[in-house]
């Protein structure tokens, strides 16, 4: 697959503080790439370097195999952190300005305003917008040039649940067009829903990178419940159980390698017990995220 972004040994120091540390990363065409990490782990700084506003201390990166320049930036739609606009200009005028700088067709503006549902307020000054409306305008400005890459830093910050779902749909739609998206977010649930790949940063260092589909591979967690008083004791006898926990009135059995939910089902059946609830749970990205961060803690 074609490499869209390739980062080599990218480093940024703010005085003594190392915000990004020897980062190597590749993003391929069509990926929806989630950047995860706790507050201050260097996500925005990394994106800032990619977008030319933060000068790297060392290291390099290339878009489409070419060294970065302002011309490549015109092909990227990006919003870093807060929405930034001229407060005294209307939403419409702000977008016209974005389009002028990007060399985009201003004819796209009504379409993107429609996408983020701001058409009715387009002639009001940006200053008068609510937080969520500002965020929507920022997304509109990222879309105005019909970019081949979209970079979004906390795009759903301040949006209502409907807004969050709408942004998710927008991201999915854009990704379906074969475009590449880089998304920094703390909403792991969202990342798991929309991203194909993810990376985890901690204090500027890359801890993990890989496909989202791999999350929870290899281990199977089975939730089970049955009308039996000693189900907990009984489950201990099952050959395939690695560990057993009780949560929300359900038993969670972590399976040993090679054992699956059907084996547990057969075991119970042989004991004359019929399960009232039996479900395989994939490990959530959130769980994996916390594990990656705490593993890292043990090592360093």
């Amino acid at each position, binding site marked *: 697959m074609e490499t869209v972004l390739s980062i080599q040994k990218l480093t940024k120091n703010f005085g003594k503080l190392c915000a990004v540390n020897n980062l190597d990363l590749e993003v391929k065409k069509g990926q929806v790439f989630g950047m995860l990490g706790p507050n201050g782990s260097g996500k925005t700084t990394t994106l*800032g370097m990619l*977008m*030319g*506003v*933060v*000068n790297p201390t060392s290291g390099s990166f290339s878009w489409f195999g070419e060294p970065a*320049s*302002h*011309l490549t*930036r*015109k*092909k*990227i739609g*990006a919003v*870093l952190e*807060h929405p*930034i*606009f*001229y*407060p*005294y*200009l*209307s939403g419409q*005028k702000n977008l*016209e*300005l*974005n389009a*002028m*700088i*990007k*060399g985009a067709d201003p004819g796209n503006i009504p379409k993107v305003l429609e996408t983020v549902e701001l058409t009715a307020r387009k002639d009001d000054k940006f200053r008068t917008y609510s937080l969520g409306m500002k965020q929507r305008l920022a997304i509109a*400005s990222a879309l105005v040039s019909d970019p081949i890459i979209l970079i979004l830093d906390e795009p759903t910050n301040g949006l209502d649940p409907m807004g969050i779902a709408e942004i998710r749909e927008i991201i999915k739609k854009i990704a379906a067009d074969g475009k590449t998206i880089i998304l920094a977010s703390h909403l792991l649930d969202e990342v798991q829903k929309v991203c194909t790949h993810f990376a985890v940063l901690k204090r500027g260092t890359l801890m993990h990178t890989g496909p989202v589909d791999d999350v929870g591979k290899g281990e199977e967690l089975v939730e089970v419940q049955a009308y039996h008083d000693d189900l907990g004791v009984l489950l201990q006898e099952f050959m395939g159980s690695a560990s057993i926990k009780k949560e929300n009135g359900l038993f969670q059995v972590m399976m040993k390698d090679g054992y699956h939910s059907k084996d547990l089902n057969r075991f119970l059946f042989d004991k004359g017990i019929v399960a009232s609830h039996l479900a395989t749970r994939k490990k959530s990205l959130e769980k994996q995220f916390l594990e990656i961060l705490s593993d890292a803690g043990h090592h360093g």
Partner: protein
Amino acid sequence: MLHLLKIDLKKMTSYRTFWVICGLYFLTLGFTTASGMEILKWLASKGAEFGASININRVPLYHFPDIWQNLIWISGLFKIVLAVMVVISITNEYQYRTIRQNIIDGMSRWEFLQSKILTNVMLSLMSVLMILSIALFTGFIYTPKIEWDYFLVGSEFFVAYFLEIFAFLSYALMLGILVQRSGLTIVLLMLSHMIEAIIKLNIFRSSVEDQIGFLKQFFPLESITNLVPLPFARYAFQEIQDYVALTAVAIAIGWTVLFNYFAYLKLRKSDI
């Protein structure tokens, strides 16, 4: 190029402060320069009431070719207003962080600076055009007998005037990029002449004045002032410099290039 200018103008043309300040500038500039003769007449009539008769026709303020240098020198006093506008325009970009989004959207840092420099060029040209038309208009009204041979003597001051405005706006732009906060920048801009004068006072003590006094003309703000020398002493029968000195132009051009270069250096190095 034109595209970059258009981008900067688009930012300004819906900004009320821009219209207020530019309106104030061009109105006061226009009224002052155009009505000088009327003020003089009024002064003369007041003087007559007190028995002191001034013959205003002895003071050919608005006669060709004197009018060029006279009006241009007066107009130079107003450039601070335009410079304040330039400071507001650039420090706004820092305060609202829109410079960051401009770069993210695909401007290079040099293009961003260019767009601001081009606006400075435009504002300078507009000042020149305004004074040129006012000088032509009033000159034809007030000059009793136009001698075409001398008509254009001193009109090279328009080149100096353009440079004077543009150099000062470049200075204001650089200051804004270095300081980034509007209030502080405006105070520094206002105090610049005084600060430079104090520095000069300390360097050029009377003991060394004779040997190194000529260095004064190399100071940035003095170099801008030297472009158009004060003309009015000639009406008190004193010699004045009624031409544009090439060394003054060279030094002023040198500083203008440096101002914009320093702005570029700062812009290139900093995280935005």
